[in-house]
């Protein structure tokens, strides 16, 4: 059991390094472009936020506010989307003994975490320095909720994998859902800016809880009225276990 697990970890590590080396490898600076792409996306979001007028409470510096909402969302989104797209692209790796579809999926998820995690860390430090955001209220809470958003992305990706495997055009439909998700997940607003009448329609979304909790764990000035870490943890574990079971079921019945 432990030997098998360590073998899988070794395979995932090798695949992640390969992904890192080969992503954008047709360009001169290779993987650095992946990081630049994320920075450009964040800058675009910031401009958009300024254009649509800030909905953040006045005590929150705008860049920190945006980073705390956007990076967990994009980590979740890109992990799930990457997992839905990677298998057809890397099918040839399955010709190698010891490489399983799950290894390829987890390597993609790990690469997303490495990319967004590093941007998040550096971005938060820089924004905190320039905007004088202060010391976070709970660093452990921030890290934990961020990691849960990543694992939720894995679970969400695994859960949707059978749908995309059986009906590939579903990926196009999902693109629309992602856009709604971005809007509904509190990247641009805090729930306190929304009339309580509508909270019941929004709080089912665990990613809204993530955005709220991230801001609560950073800013002393903001206490979320709805963010519930147990709800986030329950959704994450539920999606992850359901996704793993579904992936196993579909792998045996619809081999790649």
């Amino acid at each position, binding site marked *: 059991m432990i030997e098998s697990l360590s073998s899988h970890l*070794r*395979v995932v590590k090798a695949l992640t390094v390969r992904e890192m080396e080969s992503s954008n*490898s047709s360009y001169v600076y290779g993987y650095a472009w992946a990081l630049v792409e994320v920075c450009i996306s964040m800058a675009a979001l910031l401009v958009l936020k300024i254009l649509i007028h800030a909905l953040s409470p006045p005590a929150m510096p705008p860049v920190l506010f945006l980073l705390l909402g956007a990076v967990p969302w994009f980590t979740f989104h890109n992990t799930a989307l990457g997992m839905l797209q990677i298998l057809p692209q890397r099918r040839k790796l399955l010709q*190698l*003994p010891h490489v399983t579809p799950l290894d390829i999926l987890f390597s993609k998820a790990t690469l997303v975490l490495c990319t967004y995690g590093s941007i998040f860390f550096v971005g938060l430090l820089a924004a905190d320095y320039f905007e004088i955001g202060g010391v976070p209220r709970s660093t452990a809470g921030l890290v934990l909720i961020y990691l849960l958003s990543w694992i939720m992305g894995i679970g969400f990706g695994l859960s949707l994998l059978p749908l995309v495997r059986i009906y590939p055009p579903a990926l196009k439909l999902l693109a629309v859902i992602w856009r709604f998700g971005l809007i509904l997940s509190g990247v641009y607003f805090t729930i306190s800016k929304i009339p309580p009448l509508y909270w019941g329609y929004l709080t089912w979304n665990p990613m809204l809880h993530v955005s709220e909790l991230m801001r609560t764990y950073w800013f002393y000035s903001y206490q979320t009225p709805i963010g519930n870490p147990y709800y986030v943890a329950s959704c994450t574990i539920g999606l992850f276990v359901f996704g793993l079971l579904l992936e196993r079921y579909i792998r045996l019945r619809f081999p790649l």
Partner: protein
Amino acid sequence: MSVEFVNVGKIVGRGKYAHTLFDDLNFRVENGTRIAILGLPKSGKSTLLRLICGTDHADSGSIQRSSSVSWPIPLGDFLVSFSTVAANIKFIMRLYGLDSDQTVRAIAELVEISEFLNTRLGDCPRHVKQRLAFALGVGLGFDICLFDQRVSAVDKEFKEKSINIVKSLSPDKAIVVATSNPKEVAEVCDTVFVLESGKLTPFSDIKDAIEHLKALMGMNEDNEPDATDAGAEPVDEEFVLEIGI
């Protein structure tokens, strides 16, 4: 140290196209054996190799592996054109828990491509990819090396050397060649099976195995299609030329 098939069954295709490829297949690859598996095209040779190395699963029965097994050589689709030759070697080494610059160099030297180590694979001459795929399979120390179709699937200049490399593999390593090219097999293997209707029939002499294969193809003594076997499936011309009948 071996790979053992116990009552293995394999169904290929789906729905109305599904058919049983192997049924109750029992087979064992011991370390140090050199096995050739001859069979008609689409008889299941490649599937058998995939089952041996574990990239395909059996639908019934069990396959026990206590040896490290290579992928079917010279498969090299997993190599990345945008990465250098060295990066490709390192990837495979990391995958199997090996990591040393010396091994990278040794792999490249084995097939005389050291000068391309730091060149992107896509920018290298075509033979570099073929040789690299071959070198990775035979040079990383797998207990069992599998070959699909050819032992020497490299450029002409290196063909003879590649056969010598395979011949010179340590005596405790096993080789399994699934092929329709008995010429090469005779040089490398000492045990022959013919794969027919999902069953492996052992032959003590490779000539007998070839004769049996000819009969399966519906060829008579003059290497013409047998008139009595009008319903036989047409056979790939290239295959007929390859096995030299």
